[in-house]
Every structure is written in C-alpha cells, then in structure tokens.
C-alpha cells in the first residue's frame, strides 16, 4: 500500500517536472526543474532496490551534469530579450506530445504491455548495492569499463578543443 503511494507521488512529480522542463523559456528554470525531476527519479530508483544507481543519479547527473549545464548557461550570459524568440510555442509542443503519444506511448501501453507478464523476481540479498555492482563490473563488464575510461578521455579532449578560442 505504502509503496504504491510512494510510487505514484514520485511518478507524478517526475512527469510534472518533465512537462515543466520542456515548456520553460529561461534555461535556468529548465535546469532547475530538471534537477527536481532527477530527484524524483532517484527516489524511484530507490523503490526499485537500486540503491547504488539512485545515489549515482544524484551525484553524477544532478550534481555533475546539471551543474555543468548551468555553468555554461551562465557563461553565455543571455539577456531576457534574447530568450523571447526561443519561447515554447504551445501549439507545437502539444502537437509533438500528441504525435509521441500516438506513435510511442499508445502502442506500448495498449499493444505491448498487456501481453507481457512481468513479475518481480526474488532478489538476492545485496542486490543493488555498491559491492554487487562492483562485482558485476569487474567480472563481466571489465572491457566496456576500460573503454569507458577512454571515452571519457576523448570527451575531455574534444570539449577542450571545441571550446578553445584559438586552435
């Protein structure tokens, strides 16, 4: 009972924050609502026994990526007048939402999901903890992990090169 309650509140918050985000004019407002959405999402991860992932969500996404985005927004120092032409036009947003609903949501909700019977399985103790994740990484996914470090390196160098004033 309680978990259903928690789920619905968190889900509602997530959806509302998401809708808010795509309709904001000011990017800072958008970023803030985004952080709110991430918070709700982290809560949802927690209900799914994914403790490690929920922490990572807050730390990396909300605390890292969003901060970066806010830094860049502030760096560009846009005047409210500059932001006016980029207002969200309700017509298009609604249209896009409707299109998305009909092409993605409706099929999934009404065609795919009713036919699938997913049930929560019995979880091992320690499911979702940092130890379990670590074990998984360093046994099955060691190679992608190493490649990931390369990807991050490339991203750093790429960002530097792209943002330089003089090449």
């Amino acid at each position, binding site marked *: 009972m309680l978990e259903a309650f928690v789920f619905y509140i968190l889900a509602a918050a997530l959806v509302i924050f998401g809708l808010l985000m795509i309709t904001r004019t000011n990017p800072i407002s958008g970023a803030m609502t985004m952080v709110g959405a991430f918070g709700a999402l982290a809560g949802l991860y927690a209900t799914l026994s994914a403790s490690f992932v929920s922490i990572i969500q807050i730390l990396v996404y909300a605390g890292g990526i969003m901060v970066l985005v806010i830094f860049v927004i502030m760096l560009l120092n846009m005047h409210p007048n500059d932001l006016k032409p980029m207002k969200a036009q309700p017509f298009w947003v609604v249209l896009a939402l409707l299109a998305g609903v009909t*092409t993605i949501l409706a*099929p999934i909700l009404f065609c795919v999901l009713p036919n699938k019977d997913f049930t929560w399985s019995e979880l091992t103790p320690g499911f979702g903890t940092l130890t379990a994740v670590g074990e998984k990484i360093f046994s099955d996914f060691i190679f992608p992990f190493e490649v990931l470090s390369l990807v991050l390196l490339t991203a750093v160098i790429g960002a530097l090169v792209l943002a330089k004033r003089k090449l």
Partner: protein
Amino acid sequence: MLKLEHFQNITYVHSDWLWLIAALPLLGAVINGLLTLLAARKVLSIKPWVYAAVACGAAISSFVVSWEMFSQFKQTPNSPWVQELFNWIESGAFHVSFNLELNSLSGVMIVFVTFLASVIHLYSASYMKGDAGFGRYFAYLNLFLFSMLMLVLAQDLLVLFLGWEGVGFCSYLLIGFWFEDKANAEAGKKAIILNRIGDAGFIAGLLMVFALAGTFNFNDLLAHKQGFTEITATIICLCFFFGAAGKSAQIPLYVWLPDAMAGPTPVSALIHAATMVTAGVYLIARLHFLYVLAPWVSTLIAVIGVLTALFAATIALVQNDIKKVLAYSTISQLGYMFLGVGVTSYEAGIFHLITHGFFKACLFLAAGSVIHSLRGEQDIRKMGGLLKHIPVTSVGFLLGWIAITGILPTCGGFFSKDEILWKALSTPNPISSVLPEILYFIGLAASFLTAFYMTRLVILVFFGNYRGDQEVYEHLHESPRLMTWPVLVLGVSSLFIGWIGVPTAIGGANELGKFLDPLFHLSTLESNALPHSLEPMLMLASFLVACLGVGMAWYVYSFKPATSKNLSKMFTGVKKVLDGKYFVDEFYNATVVRLAKAIAQWVSGWLIEGLLVNRLVELAVKGVTRLGHAVKQAQVGFVRVYLAYIAAGAALLIYLLLH
C-alpha cells in the same frame, strides 16, 4: 437469271512461271536503279545504251513470256492459271495469299500492256537520247510496267491495290521527271494527290468488302456473291468507282491528266493513254459480279462516263497544245469505256480499252516525233504543212487519226466504239427507260466532236502552210528510225486491232467477245431491247456522224479558214468557257485546295505546334518546377525539424516491424 453453278465448275491450273511476267520488269528496274546510283556517285561510267538495253530487254522478254503463256492458256480458256507466291498476311482469321491469276481478262491485258510497253521502251531509247536522267527514266519505266502487271495479274484486291499504288507512284515520278522546272513537279504532285483522293474511295471499298466478306480474293468474293445485298453492293461499288475515277480521269477527278502532259511524251503514251488510266476500267471489269448487283452505281458510271466523254471533247475543240488535245481526247475515250462497263457490257469496255491503247499510243508517239522534229514546239498554231517535211511521222499520225475517228469502216476504233454505243442503246436500264436513248445520243455527239477536233488537229499540224518560226523550219527533219518505226507499227496495228471484235451482226466472229464472254456472262445484262438487225444501221449512223465531223472540220479549218475566227467572234462567251476548260481547276483551287490548306495550317500550327509542342512542354516544365518548389519547402534548415523527420521515419519503421 443469274446462276452461280456456272462458276463452280471452274478448275484452276497451277502455274510455276507466272511470276516471271512481272519479275522481269522489276529486275530491269532494280538493275537500272543500281546502275544509275553507281553512275551518279561516279563509281562506274555507264553508257546510255546499257540502260536502254536492260529496260527494253526486260519489257520485250516480258512480252514474249506473256504471249507464250497466253497462247497456251487460250487452248483451255475455262481453266485459269494460278500461282500462289507466298503467304502475305496471316493474322488470326485474316489470311491474304499473294496470288497471281491468268484468266481470260488478265491474259488479254498482259499481252496488250507488255506489247505497248515494249514498243514505247524502244521509242524512248531514241526520244530520251542525251537526257541527263536517262538511266533513271528507264528504271522508272520498268518499275511502272512491273506495277501495272502486278495490278493486272492480281487475284486479290489487296495485291491489286499494291499495283494500283505502284502505278500512281510511278506516274508521279515520271510526270515530274524534269523536276527542275517547278511546273513539272507541280503536275506530278497534282497527279498523285488526285489519285490519292480516289484511293481513299478504294480503301473505303476495301474495308467494306473485308467487313462483309472477310476476304479480298476475287474468286472467294465471287462465291460469296450472295452475301452482298443491293445496298452494301451499291456502297462498295461507289467507293471503288471513286477510286477508278481518280485513276482513269473521269469527272470529277480528271484534272490531273492534262497537266500530266508535262512529262516526256513516251510517258504520256504509256501511262496516260494505254495502261495506268485503264486500270480503273480494269478494276470495274474485275469486280463485274458486284456491279451487276448495284444497278444504280452502274447507271451512274454510264452517265458519268458519257458526260465526261462529251465534256472533254468540247474542251479539246479549243486546245492549242498538241499534247493537250490528245490528253482531253484520252479523257473522252475513257468516258466511252466507262459507258461500256456502266451498261454492264464489260467486253465492249475492254475491247475499246485495247483499241484505244493502240491508236492513242500511236498518236502520242507521233506527236512526240513531231515535237522532236520541231525542236520542242508544241503549239499547233505554230505548225502546219508538216506532211511534206516529215512524211513518215505524218503518215503514222494519220493512221492513228483514221483509227480514232472511225472514218474508215472496220478500221481502228470503229467496231469498239460502235459496240459500246450499240450496247448502250439496246441494254434496257433498270432505273430509267429513257436512259439508253440519252446515253446513245450523247455518245454519238461525243463521237462527232471526236472526229471534229481530231481532224482539226490533223489539218492544223500537217496540212496548210507552215506558221511557225523560221529557224525551226530550217532545221526541220524527220526523226530517227527508232522513233518513227514504232509509230508506224502502232499505227498499222491500231488499224487492224479492231478485227478481233467484229460483231456477229455483220457476220463477224467476235473473237474477243466470245473469249471474254464466259467470264462476264453472268454479269452482263441482256441487251435485247432492240433487234440485232438494227446494229448495222447504227454502224452506218456512226460512220455518217464521223464523216460529218471530218467534213465540217475540213470546211472550217481548211476550206474556209476564216470560219473559225468568225465562229469565235459569234460565240465569245462559249469560247471563253471552253478556253478556260470550264474553270474547273479554278473552282477546285478556290474550294477544296483552300480548305485543305487551311486545315493543314490549323493542324500544323495551332494543334501540333501550339498545343502539343508548346503547351505540353510548358506544362511539363511548369509541373516539374512546381514540384521542385513544393519539395523545397521541406528544407527549412532547422535541425529540430530534421530530427522530427528522423523520428517520424523511425516510428514508421517500428510500426511496420510490429505489425
């Protein structure tokens, strides 16, 4: 009454060599054509006598073969010879076999055509000497002979049409032979255009025949005769008569023949006296079994024939060009032939066709000789007294004159013209009972005029005093033998050719009539309106009329030369109309020609250029441009729109995969 059983007893004999008759001239044409081409490109140098030898050889050998075959055939006249050459068209149920048939009619015709052709070929070798187009001329002449023989020997309307078109085309080539002079080219064009108009009728007839009978073969059509009602037969016969009128220069399609005198004189002799113009008469004779089913059309043919005879004779009275007189005379005599076949007297028509061929060819060749002697002078007002200076040619011409006027009983066209007039008078007409008399008297009047204008021509050219240029007079000389001897040969034969059809009424055997009778028997209406004893009386009547014509002409032009001037003064209006040839050409120009030109302009200008070319191309261009503009709208430059496209595409794919 008409019985079909007679025809069902015919047995056909297979022949392997009929094709030779037509193939020899074709070979000659091809060889001459190739040689001309090679000589024109300076590959070879060909002496003129080579062309002449090839052509004359082809014509003469064709004659020899025809004569041989015909003599053999005469022994069994009721068994036509047939040669099936090849399957021409096979399309479902439509089957046309390219067959040649030698029956009584075609046999007589091929001998007649090849003989005249041979003589005229020999004549041409001398007449066309020195002409730059010597080889081309003989190639065309041989090609013409081939087409004519194909026409005559055809067992099929379609094969006949092949020859029909061929002779029309060759006549165009030969009339416009000296095409550097625009007037000659125009004359050639006129001939073929009028022929073509007639051919439209021919084709209409062909289509109807096919629709009703499903076959073009003469023998099959004969067997199918019961399938034609009077109305359908009338329409078909009318269509074919229209074609024949174009080919054989009857009203209203005769206007090309006088203009056709622009071609070399031997061409006029061969094509426009003896052979091509007779194709129309031959066609009607071939389709005799249809024409007897359509009395209205037969009557129409007779009426038009006799009216043309009279009409052309009146125009010939005032012509001043020697060849034009002979041209109108040809039209007039053709009218007689049509009169003959119009009263279903097909033997009479063919008889006159043969005699006319001989004496008209003789007259044309003699005229050509005269023109040659006078260095190209054709106006008879500038001739006169030539009998003394070019005796051989003059005698030849006079022989032809005797034949055409019928002044000497039993000679020349006497019997043939007479038979036509007799049949016209004595065959009761199912449409109108007074028609035979009308036809007879108009025919008699035309006969009178024929005698008159021919005598006028003879007097003005050969008798009296010379009225031409002095210079020409000085160089006046007889033509070479190769030109004068054919004239004499034809002249003499035209006198005696009439003897193949001496009527039984005066004790003759009428060989030609009896020979052709089995073929035409069932299609000939009984001419029993008058007792046979009356026939010699009619012959006497025509003889007197001819004498009257000759005598009056002699009076007007020789005895009292001033008479013609006085007559012209008295009848200026009539003279103007006759001089203007009844203004028929002008009338046609103002109506038909202008209309045709206007339609052609409209189609070419407004329809094809304006509509098809300009409009359609414009439409295409505009359409493509608009389409391009429309598609261009999709390129907005905004990335998010392109993203939307991608998303839409992905969604579509997913849909398709899921379903």
